[in-house]
């Protein structure tokens, strides 16, 4: 934001800045309009429900990732944590819904504690630490599942299944969970010292220390939050598919990072928005959804690999716009 208007046409700079701020939302709305005009059933309750049910999980890990990236960090372990927590939820399902849910979230939070403690106490880069827990959590998930493809849920635990497959006030339960999480997250980022200090640390860690902020505690907090939200996503995954999935969640961390960046949060930390992250996550999901509909029309047949290409292109576009509008991170 520094020197934004010093070079070039101010009107152009303003336009670019608006594009950077609202471009993602605009693209999201445009895609919805495009989809509703082109495809029958796009706006149907069924599509809406399945869309939210599936993408709620991405939304949750993106929310955690948003907080981590705001501090200038990264959490690569979330995809593995989703798998781990889904297995934990399945294994605990015979003991009731509360135990299963808390167990899944606690497993995720535990990985977050490990990440956070190593990063803050031993002063090791988040990238390396969470890469290690990415491998470790996946391994533990497979071990707990005794190397099987899945761990079935206790069929008697219908409450747990409802959390993944049920509806509340005609909304899919995962979507409701997502909405609550984002409202709480949004308030936390805007109004809680935790959120503000996370932003401050991303903007300048040394300065934050000099101002007396407890940098270590806040950083530990964001990694625990990220782990816990990934745990919640893992529980939803198990509930949806009726089984713990030790091999699921591959590469989800990258989708979450993409969603956060598309939402306009700087990878270098210091600024960021929870709501833009939500839009970013849903937008990436929407691209996939639209491709499915397009294939359904039978005119063209795009392989699912195209979603990767299109998502990648989108990510690049956003980053280029960010740098053009001067929203570059400070070293």
């Amino acid at each position, binding site marked *: *934001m*520094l020197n934004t208007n010093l070079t070039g046409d101010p009107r152009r700079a303003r336009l670019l800045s608006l594009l950077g701020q609202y471009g993602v939302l605009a693209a999201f709305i445009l895609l919805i309009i495009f989809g509703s005009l082109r495809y029958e059933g796009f706006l149907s309750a069924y599509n809406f429900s399945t869309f939210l049910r599936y993408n709620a999980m991405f939304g949750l890990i993106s929310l955690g990732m948003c907080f981590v990236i705001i501090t200038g960090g990264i959490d690569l372990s979330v995809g593995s944590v989703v798998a781990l927590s889904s297995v934990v939820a399945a294994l605990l399902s015979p003991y009731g819904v509360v135990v299963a849910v808390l167990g899944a979230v606690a497993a995720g939070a535990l990985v977050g504690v490990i990440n956070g403690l190593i990063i803050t106490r031993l002063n090791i880069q988040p990238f390396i630490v969470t890469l290690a827990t990415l491998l470790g959590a996946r391994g533990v998930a497979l071990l707990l599942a005794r190397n099987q493809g899945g761990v079935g849920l206790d069929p008697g635990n219908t409450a747990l299944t409802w959390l993944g497959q049920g509806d509340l006030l005609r909304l899919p339960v995962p979507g409701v969970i997502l909405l609550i999480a984002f409202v709480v997250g949004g*308030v936390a980022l*805007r*109004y*809680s*010292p935790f959120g*503000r*200090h996370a*932003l*401050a640390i*991303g*903007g*300048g860690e*040394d*300065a*934050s*220390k*000099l*101002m*007396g*902020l407890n940098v270590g505690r806040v950083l530990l907090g964001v990694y625990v939050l990220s782990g816990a939200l990934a745990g919640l996503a893992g529980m939803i995954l198990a509930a949806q598919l009726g089984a713990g999935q030790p091999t699921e969640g591959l590469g989800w961390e990258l989708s979450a990072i993409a969603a956060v960046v598309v939402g306009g949060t700087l990878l270098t930390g*210091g*600024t960021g928005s929870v709501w833009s992250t939500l839009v970013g996550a849903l937008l990436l999901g929407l691209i996939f959804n639209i491709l499915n509909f397009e294939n359904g029309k039978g005119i063209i047949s795009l392989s699912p690999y195209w979603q990767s290409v299109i998502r990648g292109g989108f990510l690049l576009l956003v980053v280029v716009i960010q740098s053009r509008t001067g929203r570059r991170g*400070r070293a």
Partner: protein
Amino acid sequence: MQDIQKSFAGVVALADASLTVAPGEVHALIGQNGAGKSTMIKVLTGAYRRDGGSVTFAGGPVEFTSPLAAQQGGIATIYQEVNLIALRTVAENIFLGREPKRWGLIQWPVMNAEANRLLRELGIGLDVTRPLGEFSTAIQQMVALARAVSINARLVIMDEPTSSLNEREVDTLFGVIRGLKERSVSVIFVSHRLDELYAVCDRITVMRDGRTVYAGNMADISRLQLVEQMLGREIKNEGAQTGFVKSGAGKAGEPLLKAEGIRLGQRLTGASVAVRQGEVVGLAGLLGSGRSELARVIFGADMPDAGEVTLDGQPAHFRTPAEAINAGLGFCSEDRKAEGIIPELSVRENLTLALLPRLARAGVVDTVRQSEIVNRFVAQLGIKTSDPDQPIRELSGGNQQKVLLARWLATDPRLLILDEPTRGIDVGAKAEIQRLIGELARGGLGVLMISSELEELIEGCHEVTVLRDGHSVARLSGDGITEPELLHAMAQGLEPQDIPAQVSP
């Protein structure tokens, strides 16, 4: 602070340094680079542990273990580089860590109103909800001050706060400082601009070589005395304090390089200098007078706002150092460690770094020629190294400097700019480097030497240009280069019409 002592790995940084600041007093702390000012401040704020001496603050002995502890104890430091968070709003920067809350949630309206009130008291009105980075450095410093005031600091340390401010901003800052005085907040003010010290400070402490050499009322010391104290005034008449052997006089004739009326922001306000072939020209002045800045402009590292640079009478406005190097210029920077040597690489590689493009054939370095050149310079400059493949970090400062000199000499330059070539080098090696510089000039090289050492300027230079506050205030040559003249020019400067328009005899 009494009798503070501090050494780093056996090198004494502070020896019996003392500093006394009364409540509500603005105290100037001044000294050359390496005099120990920053070490002193870091000891005070707990960034360093002292080896000896005592610190008393607000009536009792204190022992701060970190800058944070000092801050909580009532000592705030405002650094040159503002230590706030540019991406966050002004109000947040003032209240980070102490936000007004209700039920655990931040009350933005209260925080913004409070921030507004604090800044208005300091005489500043601005939108506190904007990110801090959108404002000028001056405003950012005021915000840092507002933060200090709001945490009830009793002592505020300002480290060269005015170095990047323009005149109006400096005035605003001084207004704020006077406001602090009224609340009996003490201020330690580090600056190299004498005008400012006299304008705002009550008392002054001068440091040199890790010691306090003067402490007294600002009004009791003249500028000239002040500069004398700062630079050390041990008149040595025997000469030969340095390794220079003056080669009679510089050669007359047209200047090789001429810079005239160079302007660059606040830092250069009309600086001029000329160097002839075979001549060593000194560039003198206090810190912040614009010496290095002028050198950087000549070398193409910075673009001037105005002014003329000519080489051999032809306009020579280099846009990059590479262009300057191609035209036959060389530049040994002041900061040898950061901008000169590459510590892990060998003497051989460091020496031929600027030369590699010319040594390479089809992208492969011609090692035979490389060795030839390296051996020649190692012998010629007397570089003491066990083996050309020894990492340069293992060499002494003097020998590192020789390698850097050789690096530029290998490019066969016509003009060499040396920024403090003998700083941080032991006495023996210093004399050797100085002898070398003299020899090089005799061989026809033009040398522009920035130096803070009076002996070096007096004995080594055919001509000395003195800068003050970014412009040339005096040009001394031949026997006219004397200590009183130099000190006088650095401290007060001569009126422009007094600049002797003489040519070296």
